[in-house]
């Protein structure tokens, strides 16, 4: 009887991540995350679910000599996948947005008392993030800021 009662809807199916543009992320979004999110007390902490690798911040090798090196391919890929994973629930766009402008609670804004990352949706960096999530594309040959290119 239990077998009959248990549904047969498959729940353990893989999901493909959104096909958002990697060059746009690498050259436009990642610099914003490195500048606004990657402080050691914030998402530059290796214990956080959403982690951002950035120069002079969190590094994948953990070696002090690599601290100021350009991001490795593995770090770029990790940043890209971390950002994609936070699209669920609109976290990537609404967590750093002030609640008065429709954003979610962000403890970083509370801890440091300096407001959220984006005061409103007119912030140029917010609009860049939103554009990426809406499918904006960049030339694959774009130069990544801080990449030693």
């Amino acid at each position, binding site marked *: 009887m239990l077998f009959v009662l248990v549904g047969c809807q498959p*729940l*353990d199916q893989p999901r493909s991540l959104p096909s958002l543009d990697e060059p746009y992320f690498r050259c436009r979004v990642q610099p914003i995350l490195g500048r606004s999110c990657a402080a050691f007390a914030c998402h530059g902490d290796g214990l956080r679910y959403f982690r951002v690798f950035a120069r002079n911040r969190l590094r994948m090798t953990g070696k002090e000599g690599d601290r100021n090196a350009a991001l490795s391919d593995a770090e770029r890929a*990790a940043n890209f996948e971390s950002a994609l994973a936070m699209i669920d629930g609109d976290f990537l766009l*609404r967590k750093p947005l002030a*609640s008065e402008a429709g954003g*979610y609670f962000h403890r970083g804004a509370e801890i440091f008392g300096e407001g959220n990352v984006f005061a409103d949706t007119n912030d140029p960096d917010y609009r860049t993030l939103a554009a990426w999530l809406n499918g904006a594309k960049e030339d694959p040959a774009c130069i990544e800021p801080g990449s030693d290119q």
Partner: protein
Amino acid sequence: MRLQLIIAGMLVPSAARAQVASVDVRNGLYQDTDHTTINTTVVAAKASPTTDLKVDGHYLVDIITSASVDVISAATTAFHETRHEAAGGVSWHGLSAGYVYSVENDWESHTASADIQQDFNHRFTLSLGGRYVANAVGRAKDPNFHRSLDAYGGDVGLTFVLSPMDLLHLSYTAAYLDGYQASPYRFVTFDKQMLGAPETDPTTRLRHAVTLRWNHHGEGDTALRSHVRVYSDDWGIVSATIGTEWVIGMGAWETGLHVRGYAQNGADFYQASYTQPMRYMTADRELSPFIDGFAGARLGWHHGTASFLKEFRFEIKVDGFGFYFFDFPRLRERAGVIGELALGVSL
């Protein structure tokens, strides 16, 4: 609940059965090894304005302090919150209806229920019930996070008087949940280095449970209350619960020893750590395979009087429990104690 009242009726003096109103206060303290403390206080009242009409209500407050592994992250250390619950019900002959309102900082719910039961020759009782729960799910300190969860449930029960000493109750319960069933505080992890993601539970869930209860009035003033429950849902969880309580009446005193065990498998989409993004992902340990066990004792006392206060009573209860999670590396075991003290009067 009804069976508990029936057995209780076997053990209390006739003066208590004639009561027209009662007030009870109960305080409970829960402490576990996962750094969670819950203090619960309930004030409940019942009245019977007429022989067939009964009304009841309660107010409950939970004060919760937790630094559980579910909430700890680099950004969160612990939380403190208070849940308030108010409920009222009315029953007349075999019809009853109830309403419960519950609110805390990130959750608000309304529950409406209705039940009907019919007795056949004092040997057989059929009961039917239905309930609807509307939940508004929020996130602490977040005015812009709003989700909803509706639950629809129904049950059918059959109670048999097998002998003057035995009652058997068989019930089937079904519930359908529709809405947000993840937690906005939990994140799943991946095998790959450095990646986490919010939970994504299915938005619907169909749950079934079959429960068998047997209450046996033994030699002297004793009773044995036993139950078995089997549960399954369309998330792939199958579970079994078995428990029993031995109740001994000794004049004005009553004592009970009880034990309960539970085992379940994990939900189809549960993984301790995911190898790739999945359509549904959860970090809820209650959706992982685990077993638990509870054991405890209680001691009650009641004293009837000839004054307008027909009865005084108190009860003290202590439970110990343990959980073992087979596939939840962040917390393999959890143990704890629950203590309760209750005082009541009947008018």
